[in-house]
């Protein structure tokens, strides 16, 4: 655990140091993955269905606000759908406009959930979204994740029914329009998924806020089970043709992913290094404010045992032969050797000494971990 905490601190430190470069890179990767997925799934418009265009647009997105990625993804999907049929374009455009007009005015930060939900669906781990949003968001995330589900299923419907939509060319505009709308509105799998995710988000949110130990872990496991149960019951009742094995495996994988995210992303304050300028009557100040790091990285050193008199000190709680120093300073003079790999392996002769040492070492490690966690908590509270 201490190693993980140290790794997290290193990650924080790395992020603080290179935030200027990391954020655009992350945006670039997000944009590229999303656009490539859209191109792979739809890909009807030859002009935008090329890696070069995707790279250029992703590069553009990396320097612009995050929501531009969503706008670009929407533009790509509209372009492809336009090449297929303009009736589909109208419906998709209206859907996007409704999302924008009715919901994203209130919480523009949630826009990214609409983009990430279809991406998670494509990666076969859709449960990651309700679990994550239940943990870091609130009940209002039900709307954004629900919108993401709808967008995914609409695009999926277009993908699955493209030949049918083409074949209806001779029947006229209204027939195609009605076929498309009927297909979307009567998609039971979509409705079931929206309901399952909504319940999951609310359950995860409620459990996460409970004053119990490990509430985050309990919340994510309960949420995953809840979504699994709802989807299975829905499949049995409404014949939604959802893969049961896929759902179970996806849910288990989602819990694992969210657990990792919880440790490295959700609970961490990636305070950025601030470059601030201000002035008073006498000075101009150009300040670089660097967030303090809280867990000290242990540098264990062990002094060599005096192997000639091991049994003289047996049982003495105050006598320490293996000195573990988290700050990297040996308490006694002596030759430094690596901690465990080269310890003397004479269990019978050094039993008492080893026992004393191990106990002390465990105590030191434990106190390091606890103090590190406390410092982390203090830091997060600040």
């Amino acid at each position, binding site marked *: 655990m201490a190693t993980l905490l140290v790794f997290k601190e290193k990650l924080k430190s790395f992020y603080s140091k290179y935030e200027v470069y990391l954020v655009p890179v992350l945006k670039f990767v997000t944009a590229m993955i999303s656009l490539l997925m859209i191109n792979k799934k739809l890909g009807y418009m030859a002009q935008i269905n090329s890696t070069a265009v995707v790279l250029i647009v992703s590069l553009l997105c990396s320097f612009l606000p995050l929501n531009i990625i969503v706008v670009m993804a929407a533009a790509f999907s509209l372009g492809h759908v336009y090449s297929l049929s303009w009736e589909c374009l*109208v*419906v998709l455009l*209206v859907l996007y*406009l*409704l999302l924008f*007009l*009715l919901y994203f*005015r*209130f919480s523009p930060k949630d826009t990214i959930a609409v983009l990430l939900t279809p991406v998670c669906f494509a990666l076969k781990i859709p449960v990651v979204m309700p679990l994550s949003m239940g943990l870091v968001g609130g009940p209002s995330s039900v709307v954004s994740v629900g919108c993401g589900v709808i967008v995914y299923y609409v695009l999926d419907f277009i993908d699955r029914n493209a030949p049918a939509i083409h074949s209806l060319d001779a029947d006229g505009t*209204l027939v195609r*329009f*009605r076929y498309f*709308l009927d297909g979307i509105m009567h998609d039971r799998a979509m409705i079931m998924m929206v309901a399952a995710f909504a319940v999951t988000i609310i359950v995860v949110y409620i459990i996460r806020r409970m004053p119990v130990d490990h509430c985050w872990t309990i919340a994510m496991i309960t949420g995953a089970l809840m979504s699994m149960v709802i989807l299975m019951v829905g499949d049995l009742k409404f014949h939604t043709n959802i893969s049961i094995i896929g759902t179970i495996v996806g849910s288990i994988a989602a819990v694992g992913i969210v657990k990792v995210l919880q440790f490295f992303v959700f609970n961490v304050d990636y305070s950025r290094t*601030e470059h*601030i*300028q*201000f002035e*008073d009557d006498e*000075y101009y*100040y150009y*300040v670089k*404010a660097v967030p303090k790091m809280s867990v000290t990285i242990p540098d264990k050193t062990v002094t060599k045992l005096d192997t000639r008199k091991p049994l003289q000190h047996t049982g003495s709680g105050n006598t320490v032969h293996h000195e573990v120093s988290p700050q990297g300073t040996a308490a006694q003079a002596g030759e430094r050797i690596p901690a465990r790999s080269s310890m003397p392996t004479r269990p019978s002769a050094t039993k008492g000494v080893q026992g004393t040492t191990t106990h002390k070492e465990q105590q030191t490690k434990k106190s390091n971990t606890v103090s590190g966690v406390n410092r982390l908590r203090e830091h997060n509270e600040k």
Partner: protein
Amino acid sequence: MLNEERIIMMTRMAAYESGEGKKNGAIGSYFRGDYIGLQVLKSVISATIAYFLVCGIYVLYHFETLLDGIYEMDLWGFARKAANAYIVTVVVYALISYVVYSYKYGKAKKKQKAYMGRLRQLSQLYQLESKNKQS
């Protein structure tokens, strides 16, 4: 002579001003009623556009039925239903907007208040410094 305490305070304030403070400052420049009223008005306009978009889709979907039955239809009743639906949509959406933006305004004002408190502290530090210089 540099006063470290003052510089730390100024740094924190500058960080707030360059980030969250911009948005909160914009919200705080309005009176409560003006801000919420403006946002609710915007919401009403958004809801109106959304309503007509949905109506457009509905009309396209039922185009043939509507066209066939237009002479037998109770147009006045249909219009009344549409108007009722419009009013309900707009009122519900405006109410949600009112709650959301009231909360946002309260939150922004609270943070602005804290910021103003820090400004006062800063001013006191300046006064203390100038007194020390004179003495």
